[in-house]
Each structure stands twice: as C-alpha cells, then as structure tokens.
C-alpha cells in the first residue's frame, strides 16, 4: 500500500473543516437525545443543517439606530471560531505548523474576543432583552475567567509548558496520570466551565427563550438572516471546540492520528465527533436531571468551579499530586 502522507497544511485545514461541518451535527445529536430522554421523538439529527440553510436564504433585518457593528460582530465571531481549531489538538497528537501561533492562553483570548464581539453586536441592537443577555454574559464571563486561568495554570505546571499538545501527551503516557488528583480536579473544573460557557443547565436553559434566565441566547435575539446563521453556527462551533479541548486535552486523548497517513487522519475525524457526541449526551442527561439555578446562585456554581481549579493547582504545586 502506498504510504502517501498528507501534508501538514492539509491536515490543518481538515481540522478546521471538521469543526466547521461537524458542529451542527453534534448539536443535532444533542437535541435529538435530549428530546428522546424527555419522551418525545426529538428533532431530526440533521435539523441544524436545514436550519442554517434556511437562514442563509432569509432576508436580513437591521434594527433602527444600529450601526455597522451589528452586522460585523457575527462575522468577527465566526472568524475567531475558525481560527481556534488551528491551535488545539483536534485530530493529531503532534503539533501542526500554525498550531504554534498561540498556546492555550492564546486560544482562550481568541474565544473571549468572539464572545465580546457577539455581545457588542447584541448591545448595538438597542433592544432590552439583547442588552440584558449581553451584560449578563459579560458578567458571568468575567467571573469564569479566573477559573479558566487556574485550569491553564494547572495544565502548565503539570507539563511545564502551556501547549495543549503536551498535556495530551502526558495524559496518554500512563494511566496513573489520569488519576492524579490535580488532573482530575482540573478536568472537573474545566467540565464545569464548559457547562457554563455553552449555556447549559444549571446555568441557563439551552432550549427555549425564558427571558428571566437568558444569558447567551439573549444576545442573538435581534439578529436575522445570514448574520443570525453565522451566530448559530458559531455558537455550535464554540461548543464543539470546548468539547474538543475537554476531550483531547483532559479526558480521553486517544484515537488521535499519530502520523500523517490519510487513514489515521480519516479515522481521527469520526473518533473526535463520536467522543464529542458522548460528551454532548452527558450534558443532555445533566440537562434533564437538574433544575436551573437562580441567577444570583450562579455565583455559587462558579465559586465551586473556581475552588476545584485552585485546588488542582495547589495540590500539584505543594504536594506533587
């Protein structure tokens, strides 16, 4: 068999494309599973694709008084979401050329930029619910930042670098690494961060639009047409990106391509999407098991996540755990 190898830029592009086209699929699976758990038939698994297609065909309506920011925001966010997959281990165990553009902290910054531009676009619309959602999102985002930082620190001190590839390699190296207290704590802390960032129970109801509890959903309320499609796609991509970081860096970094052969890369794609769907199902189960926290109690939730992240750093730093 011919040992053709894919060149690195191709693999890098494949990473992006996987995230781009796999994200709605993962979203669809999650909604479907959630519906099934609730005893309904659930929407089609491919429904998000149809939704996006429909939205791109619709006309864009812009509120009075808003400026170009309203239309540019979604585009900026979308581009950010296209950039981040270049930096994190999506399909491969080795670093790809553009992957050294930024470390995990850089990836975090870019994600924050995306969230910022969506929020700004929402504020621009002058509509009360959008502004409400935007301000709440920014507040809770600021409260999550320290936790994310400490998780990054935990990753950093365990591997002495802050490249996500390195941590994945460490975790793969032996099974005792997985049960290190610092690793478990950091993983759980990051799990809670993902839960908060993707707007799931107990922080926010993902489906439906309850104004009292809207955080992320509220920001996009006034958009329509193609920008709205970009926003929805972007948010699905952000979800998949966060899942990818959780899976490929912390929890289950197996199944990634170790070389550049097309077969391994081709296998890595369904492996990733499969694992993401499993994580999504876990989130769906959590969605149906707990109730949403009242807004002022979300700080307790974030404090718990912060606690776990701090403990991860301390236990490692001071105990060799």
């Amino acid at each position, binding site marked *: 068999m011919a040992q053709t190898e894919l060149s690195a830029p191709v693999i890098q592009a494949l990473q992006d494309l996987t995230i781009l086209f796999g994200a709605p699929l993962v979203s669809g699976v999650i909604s479907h599973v959630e519906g099934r758990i609730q005893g309904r038939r659930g929407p089609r698994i491919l429904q998000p694709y149809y939704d996006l297609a429909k939205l791109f065909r619709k006309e864009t309506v812009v509120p009075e008084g808003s400026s170009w920011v309203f239309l540019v925001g979604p585009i900026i966010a979308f581009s950010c979401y296209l950039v981040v997959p270049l930096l994190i281990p999506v399909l491969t165990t080795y670093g790809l050329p553009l992957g050294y553009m930024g470390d995990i902290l850089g990836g975090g910054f870019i994600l924050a930029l995306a969230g910022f531009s969506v929020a700004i676009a929402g504020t621009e619309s002058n509509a009360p619910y959008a502004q409400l959602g935007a301000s709440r999102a920014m507040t809770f985002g600021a409260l999550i930042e320290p936790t994310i930082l400490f998780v990054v620190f935990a990753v950093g*001190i*365990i*591997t*002495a670098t802050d490249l996500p590839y390195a941590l994945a390699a*460490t975790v793969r190296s*032996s099974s*005792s*690494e997985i*049960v*290190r*207290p610092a690793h*478990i*704590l950091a993983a759980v802390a990051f799990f809670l961060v993902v839960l908060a960032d993707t707007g799931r129970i107990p922080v926010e109801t993902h489906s439906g639009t309850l104004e009292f509890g809207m955080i992320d959903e509220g920001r996009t309320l006034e958009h329509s047409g193609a920008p709205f499609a970009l926003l929805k796609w972007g948010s699905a991509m952000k979800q998949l990106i966060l899942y990818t970081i959780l899976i490929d860096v912390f929890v289950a970094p197996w199944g990634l391509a170790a070389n550049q052969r097309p077969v391994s890369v081709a296998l890595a794609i369904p492996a990733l999407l499969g694992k993401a769907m499993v994580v999504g199902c876990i989130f769906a189960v959590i969605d149906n098991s707990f109730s949403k926290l009242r807004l002022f*109690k979300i*700080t*307790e939730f*974030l*404090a*718990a996540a*912060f*606690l*776990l992240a*701090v*403990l991860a750093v*301390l*236990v490692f730093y*001071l*105990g*060799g*755990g």
Partner: protein
Amino acid sequence: MPNAAPSTFTGAADVIAVLVLLTEFAMLRAPLLRSQVRLYAFQSLVVTSLAIVVAATRHVDELYVLAALSFILKVVIVPRIVLRLLSRAEVSLAGSSAFGVATMTMIAIAVSIFAFFSIGALHLQSTALPSAALAISVAVVLVAFVLIILRSDVVSQAIGFFSLENGVSVASLVVASGLPLIVDVAFLFDLLVAVVVFGVLMRVHHGRTKTLSTDSLDRLKG
C-alpha cells in the same frame, strides 16, 4: 518540576484527602441540616476508606480494627444521634450566616491556601510522606473553623467540630499510622463521649429556646 506520577499510596491518599476537603466545602454550602449530617457521614466514610488504604499499603493490621470502629462510630452512630435530634426539633434549615455562600467559599479557599503554604514552608523532605495529604488535612481543619465561626446554629457548629476531628484523623493516618491501637481507640472513645455531651447540650438548648439557633446565646458579654 516534579513530573513523575506519585506512588500508589501517595496518589490514593491524596485523592481521598481531596475528597475530604471537597466534602468540607460542600458542608459550607448545604442549606439543610440533614444534608450537612449526611455529608459528614460521607466524609467519615471517606476517612474510613483512607484508613483501609493505609492499612493495606503500610501493612499495619491494627488499622483495620480502627477502620471498623470508626465506621461504626462516625458513619452510623453519630449521624443517627444528630438526625434523631433534628427530627425531634423539627427544624430543617441551617441558620443563616453573615455572608453568602460564594463569599464563604472564597474565605474558605483563602484559608486553605494559607494551610497549604504553611505546611509547604515546613519543607517536609521524605518521599514516603504524602505532604499534599498532610496539607489538605490542615486545610480541612481550618475550613471547619470557618464553618463553625460563620454558621449560627448549634447543629452546624457541632457538625463542624466533628468534621474537624475528621481532618485531624486524616493527618494522623498519614503521618502517625504507627500510633498504638490503644491510643487510637482512646481517641475514638473520647469522640464518642464528646458527641454524647454535645447531644445532651443541643437537646437542652432546644428544650429551652425551641430553636437550634445560636442567636439567643449572647446574654453573657464583657
């Protein structure tokens, strides 16, 4: 940078100690007194499992006896006594404290950091000693203090004290596993007697004031 994964004993002790600390934090948050008691029972169970781990890896057979005794006492008897008091008192909510849960968690985190750094400053050198577990047990003690200081009802304060004893037990299992069994049994017996006295006083307090709150305990001043 220490990169090697810790030995089995150290790793297991560390994970268990972290669980004990997390349970302590959960007690800070628990709004119902029943949940606090159950968290204490769970914490005692975790400590018992640590005793079994230490007994197995360090080949100290006496600790199996100790584990059995502490299971009976701390997981079964003490929670029973307190739950019976609660059902008689018909009070279910913990007394509110001056701070919200998030603030108390922050204070407790700060206190744990202090504990970690002070034990770290001791530069305990041996590789056979899991100093993370020791630091965590001191953190449990200090967070129990925070719990006692900030909560304003007798049951929360009593559970806080019992969980403090759990923290000290973790410390003793980690560094003093060779302490003669008779001494460990004496400690447990002491705890039992202390629990009985706490129970008596709680019941008397409830009998007089019909609440479990310590707000009325402010007559004696100066």
